[in-house]
């Protein structure tokens, strides 16, 4: 790794830290703009408790001081305050609980999307303009055009109601099958298209022709040269894929009643549980920013040909 690459990585990390800081700051000021403050609940907490909370979070102090305390709480103690609606629970504990299920859901979906996407994309590229290529392209185009909540509800209608193969409730292990499929279809379709176009690009390169001229077997060309190089652009999709899975899981968990972080987030929006909205936004946003950072750095490190700005 040369100095230029190192410089790029440092710059990129600085940008990521700045972004997380912007997210936290925006969240703070946006929540402060809510009339009545974030701890205003309809009847959730008694007035005495609310007064105690407001005293604890220093509502009587100047705004800047509040902001600094808030930043410190988050950075050093991961303290987002108590949930307004789920009485007696801290936001961070609710998030950690939901994260177990959501992480399982997301990771399996991402894995399925990667494996199937790469295989389908490679097949489509190698059989370019044949029937199988056209079928794959039509199906992936359809999947890319379907919002996740529609995909989810249609799968629910088909495989839980019309033909009850899987349970409609996502709290059991079998119940996670449909949410996982729902979450994986869009990234899978996207990765398929990405792999196909980059594979076609690679197959037209000179080094593939050289390999062919040297008499390397077709299999070795595909697996040793073409596939490996055409997977590099897929790395750039890691970040957006995580962002899609996170936001998609909000509605998918809602549809299939999966007890994860997404469902908590959605119900906190309808319940106006502001500390919960704040905490979840910051945690999920940080995750996405980190994933974007990792995929950007990987991309530059994996392929030395890529010029750095």
């Amino acid at each position, binding site marked *: 790794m040369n100095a230029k690459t190192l410089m790029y990585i440092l710059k990129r990390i600085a940008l990521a830290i700045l972004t997380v800081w912007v*997210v936290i700051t925006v969240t703070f000021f946006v929540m402060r703009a809510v009339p009545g403050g974030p701890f205003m609940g309809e009847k959730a907490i008694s007035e005495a408790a609310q007064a105690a909370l407001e005293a604890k979070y220093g509502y009587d102090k100047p705004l800047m001081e509040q902001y600094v305390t808030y930043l410190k709480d988050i950075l050093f103690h991961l303290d987002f305050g108590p949930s307004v609606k789920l009485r007696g629970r801290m936001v961070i504990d609710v998030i950690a609980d939901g994260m177990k299920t959501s992480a399982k859901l997301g990771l399996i979906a991402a894995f399925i999307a990667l494996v199937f996407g790469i295989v389908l994309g490679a097949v489509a590229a190698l059989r370019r303009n044949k029937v199988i290529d056209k079928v794959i392209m039509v199906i992936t185009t359809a999947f890319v055009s*379907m919002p996740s909540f529609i995909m989810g509800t249609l799968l629910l209608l088909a495989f839980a109601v019309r033909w009850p193969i899987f349970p409609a409730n996502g709290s059991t292990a079998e119940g996670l099958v449909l949410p996982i499929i729902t979450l994986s279809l869009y990234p899978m379709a996207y990765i398929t298209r990405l792999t196909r176009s980059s594979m076609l690009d690679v197959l037209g390169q000179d080094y593939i022709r050289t390999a062919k001229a040297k008499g390397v077997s077709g299999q070795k060309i595909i697996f040793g040269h073409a596939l490996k190089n055409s997977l590099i652009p897929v790395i750039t999709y890691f970040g957006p894929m995580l962002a899609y899975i*996170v936001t998609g899981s909000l509605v998918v968990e809602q549809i299939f009643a999966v007890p994860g972080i997404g469902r908590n987030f959605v119900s906190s929006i309808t319940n106006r549980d*502001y500390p919960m909205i704040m905490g979840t936004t910051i945690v999920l946003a940080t995750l996405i920013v980190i994933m974007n950072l990792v995929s950007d750095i990987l991309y530059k490190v994996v392929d030395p040909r890529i010029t750095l700005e």
Partner: protein
Amino acid sequence: MKKKIFSMHVDVDDFIPATDEEKEYMVQMRPSTTFFKDGMKRLMKNKIAAISMFLIIIIALASIFLPFFWPYRYDKMLGNTPGKPMDPSYNNLAPFQYGKTEQKRIDAGESVFPHIFGTDAQGRDYFIRVVYGTRISLAVGFFASIIVLIIGMTVGAVAGYIGGKVDIIIMRIVDIIYSLPDTLMVILLASVLKVSLAPALEGTILERLGVNMVSLFLVFGLLYWVSMSRLIRGQILSLREQEYVLASQATGAKSGWIIRKHLLPNCISVVIISTALQIPSAIFTESYLSFLGLGVNAPMPSLGSLASDALNGYNTYAYRLIIPAVVISLIVLSLNLFGDGLRDAFDPKLKN
């Protein structure tokens, strides 16, 4: 005889009248096309893009004009007549069924306009709700893209033209906004703006539009312009350095001519294409927010809120979920295919 390069010697052969055959070279075989005509011809040749375009036009025209002469209104609860108790026979009608009083009128020989998709749980004609929801979704997509276009183009052009420190500062801001997770920020802003904007909007025209819609547009204006401005800035920076611009300058073209004939046509296609591709993503976001309950205000329907409402009764009334789902997917799909076609037709350089 060998001619010297700089000799003043005049070659008599150059002044022989042209023969008929030579004249034929100069005949215009077909009229020269403009940039736009050329692109349109290529677009029409692309069958998928052409079909998508007609689909979008038909859907758009239908959603604009059908509500004008449809006998039912999107928010009219048919079971409710002033001064009479609610007639529940109008609620949850299956397609082509009629309510009690309508049935009486039919029996008396009157003709009653059918409820093509039946009615919803509140006795509202579902077909017109879907049409109206399509109108709202398309309008949101269109206006959000226009907002993105205006802000993105202005910022991008300023950064590209002025350059220097201004450019650096603008691009750093763009970098940060670009790396914000947009959907999460949209949810955050929409859920809060909903509450804090409401008093500010009271009594203005915007109130009718609904607080959620205003916050949606605000959010789009705040967050989604960054990729557009990056694009425009890049275009302007690279176009200024193109050889044909240099060639044009060398042959004495004025900057007005260069901007009109070279920079604008080359920039505008990219702008139009990315605006066209922005519309489906805005429709996506709107339907997503409506599904989470952060979209249009009831009773106004959008395709997302219709699908979300239908989720409650999906066991019995699956078609109420499937209809808006199909319409959204159809709109997004055809807009995407049309956008791709536009790109291929107007900017062949971008085609991979």
